[in-house]
């Protein structure tokens, strides 16, 4: 076994997995307080990608610079979507809200298609091919930036959830919505905030990834929605720490699977692991409650 290439793959897997983790954390956070799976989550990632594409082609901005606008805008748009659309079906069956997000996903993807056309778009950056050498292992600068963006966002989220009043309210709402309402928390507002946070995280992931890949309106969104499902179900829905581990696992499994097994099945490895977890331990690898879901 060639150790250099193994560690090379491992580092790539961990870095790409970090971005998956950021996407998954957003999804799991939303599931925690709204008890629904957001089918539009991957489309939020694509919105981030197109945001960077537009700013790059119009103003020539570096994608990472656009994060200054992308994060707050993502938060506001997400909160608005929750307030205008999802808040109306919050008390219906969980499946109804899931279908609402599925409709939202179709609307977003097809609007992007109408605006930008079906041709895949990307952002060319001068450092796209640059690497940093760490011994014999080379780390792509873009992947490193993406990993750092994840680290920053997740640290900020950790701080928000554990050190602020809003964060405590979010955790309380996730644990028991009725109980949270009884102690005076405005859970409607918390849900809007959390949906905004979820979208901000997804948008950041999209902006971070755009120098690496091409975005096309319909297929890229579905791909990332699936990846987000895999990441969150791996660890257990609603559990943030588990989503981070799930993201790293998915990144490593994909990269290792693609290089040591058949690369045509790159996207299948994650799905197989996902299906196995779903069937054997549906509460997730780190889920504590053993109950039928």
């Amino acid at each position, binding site marked *: 076994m060639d150790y250099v290439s193994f560690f090379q793959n491992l580092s790539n897997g961990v870095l790409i997995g970090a971005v998956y983790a950021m996407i998954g954390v957003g999804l799991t956070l939303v599931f925690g307080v709204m008890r629904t799976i957001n089918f539009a989550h991957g489309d939020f990632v694509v919105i981030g990608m197109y945001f960077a594409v537009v700013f790059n082609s119009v103003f020539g901005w570096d994608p990472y610079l656009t994060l200054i606008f992308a994060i707050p805008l993502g938060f506001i748009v997400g909160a608005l979507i929750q307030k205008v659309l999802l808040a109306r079906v919050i008390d*219906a069956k969980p499946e109804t809200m899931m279908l609402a997000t599925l409709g939202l996903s179709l609307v977003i993807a097809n609007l992007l298609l109408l605006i930008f056309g079906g041709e895949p778009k990307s952002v060319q950056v001068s450092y796209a091919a640059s690497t940093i050498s760490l011994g014999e292992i080379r780390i792509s600068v873009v992947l490193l930036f993406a990993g750092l963006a994840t680290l920053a966002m997740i640290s900020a989220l950790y701080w928000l959830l554990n050190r602020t009043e809003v964060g405590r309210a979010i955790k309380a709402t996730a644990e028991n919505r009725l109980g949270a309402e009884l102690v005076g928390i405005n859970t409607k507002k918390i849900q809007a905030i959390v949906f905004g946070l979820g979208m901000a995280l997804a948008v950041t992931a999209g902006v971070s990834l755009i120098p690496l890949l091409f975005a096309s309106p319909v297929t890229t969104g579905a791909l990332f929605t699936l990846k987000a499902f895999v990441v969150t179900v791996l660890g257990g829905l609603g559990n943030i720490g588990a989503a981070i581990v799930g993201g790293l696992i998915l990144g490593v499994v994909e990269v290792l699977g693609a290089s040591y097994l058949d690369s045509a099945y790159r996207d299948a490895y994650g*799905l197989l692991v996902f299906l196995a977890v779903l069937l054997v331990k549906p509460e997730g690898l780190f889920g504590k409650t053993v109950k039928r879901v």
Partner: protein
Amino acid sequence: MNKHILILVGLFVAAALYPMTPAAFITVGISVLLFTGWATSWNLLGGWAGQLSLGHASFVGLGAYFVAIGSSQFGLAPWWSVLLAMLVAAVMALIWGKLTFGLRGPYFALSTIAIAEILRLIAINEGWLTGGASGVFIDTLPEPMGIDLFDKTTQYYLALIYAALTIAVTIYISTRKFGYELKAVRDNEEAAMAAGINPTVIKLKAFVLSGMLTALGGGIYGVFLSFIEPHIIFNLLFSVQIALTVIIGGRGTIWGPAVGAALLVISGEIFRTTFAQANMLLYGVLILVVILALPRGLVGEYAHRLIRKKYANRA
């Protein structure tokens, strides 16, 4: 005998006469009928048994591939290929259901996506089995009693018989014990169990029936397309399309899928030039409208209001 059978017979006659009208759009008619059939089949599992499947394109693909490969590689007549496909679909649904019916709500829907995606990747990558990413052609078909199966009018009547069959099956089930068992499982699994119903068995039956009927329609679709590409036929969005057709039309109703199919396919045709590839926008907007304003779907909401009116007058 009930009124649904009369409606079905009436619609069948009207649809059978349609190709003879001067301005008939045969291919649109075939699409409406095939979608009606698939949606009605999906409804058995998704509406009556309440299990939201987002993987039914796999069964369409199965039927289409069996017909295509049967004719291009083994010289097998399409009707035998379709029968074979239905058998395989039944086995597939049985295994699929056994694996996933322990899961509830969103988890079941997610598992269907995962399985359908894995099947799609297999269809694309296993060239020896499926002709790979470039797809399969159907170039020759037998002519039973001199009927040309490549003729669009023939295909129209095949699709019509298929759609009518699925609706007839639904009408039959709705009057039988099985129909009530399905509804019981959907509405409250614990209560159904307490009444002596085994939910998993009921769901499995629904899934097997639904899968077989969907594969049958897939076979006709294969003949209709005569060129099958895995990207298109196994696409997740195709599964979503089938599911949303029913949900917009009305889940768990007899006519909801047909109404949904007619509405969506025809309006899709009308807006074809406006939206081009973005034709799924319509599904997205309509599903949001239905969820916010008509949670039972078009037909479901209509029936609900009719019943309320009837009993309001009586009281």
